[in-house]
């Protein structure tokens, strides 16, 4: 086999695998759309207000928001993403929340969750934010003491529950 054929073989194999990946993603999208709560698009992160599905947001909703960064103390790695405060204020107004409004961020696929209150979310120094993980899903990271190491972060987020007191 000559060089050209070898390169084409390798690139062809790579392209075939990538094509399969996108087909699988497409099928998953259809499947998740059938199983979701009607109003949500596949992959939307659902926001529940007082136990009721209120809305969902997608990647496009984050594009307009400003990104912030901090260096995590565990790995000294830069975490970059969107503040939870900015995401929520994109859909709600500040007066809809009280200082002790409880916000629960969870991942159904990983059975993980974290709970914060609005007062903490409002404080920019806490860096309660969503970072894009290595495989492109959202993860909750922060410098809050109970959320400042990898083991405490919530990956593959798909639900935010807001419970005003």
């Amino acid at each position: 086999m000559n060089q050209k054929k070898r390169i084409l073989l390798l690139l062809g194999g790579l392209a075939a695998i990538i094509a399969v990946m996108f087909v699988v993603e497409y099928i998953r999208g259809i499947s998740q759309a059938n199983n979701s709560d009607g109003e949500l698009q596949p992959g939307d992160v659902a926001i529940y207000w007082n136990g009721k599905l209120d809305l969902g947001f997608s990647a496009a909703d984050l594009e307009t928001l400003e990104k912030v960064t901090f260096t995590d103390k565990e790995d000294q790695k830069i975490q970059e993403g969107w503040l939870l405060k900015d995401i929520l204020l994109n859909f709600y107004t500040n007066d809809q929340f009280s200082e002790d409004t409880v916000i629960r961020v969870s991942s159904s696929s990983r059975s993980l969750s974290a709970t914060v209150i609005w007062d903490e979310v409002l404080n920019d120094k806490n860096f309660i934010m969503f970072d894009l993980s290595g495989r492109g899903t959202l993860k909750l990271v922060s410098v809050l003491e109970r959320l400042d190491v990898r083991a405490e972060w919530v990956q593959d987020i798909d639900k935010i529950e807001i419970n005003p007191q």
Partner: protein
Amino acid sequence: MGPGYRQDRDKSTMKKQYFSTFQVFLMTFFAVLIVVAKIALRLPIQLSGHSGIFWMAIIIVGTRVVPKKGAASFIGLMSGIISAFKGLGDFGALNTLISYTAVGVGTDIALLVLRNQENLIYASLIGMVGHFGKFLVKWAFGVISGAPVGFVALGLGKALISYIVFGALGGILGGLTIVALKKAGYFAYLAEKK
């Protein structure tokens, strides 16, 4: 029958090792180098897979230093074991172990087709395929665990391109390092050591 007979018999019954002890030592050294680089080297680039630039360079140099089939997989597996124990990665030890190993397996597969790492075009393709192996595992774990599809789709295209580009750059860096080591006479020195 003296001691000489016993030595001959031991030699004849001893199974020949695929990798010599020296080669295992070298491959383990490269695996450690990957983990150290992963922890210590921080590029100020907020793109997933950017570590592939040094990752693939180290693996490709490793496969030239130990030019045997399976060397990249061995380096990948060793780096995966060390990293899993070190707690690296966002998605747990198993994900870390398999994704690090996949880099090596991908590199070995590419090396079956393109054997010459000194050719920079080949090296970039080998780096690309090797690093893609890691991405594939991360994606597969996402599918298996039922990760949200939409954000994966957002990240998928971007992360895929990022992984491929940084893998290719790492491959080129590895290829250039091999050329430099060859010029410096490192491989001739290594041949004497064997």
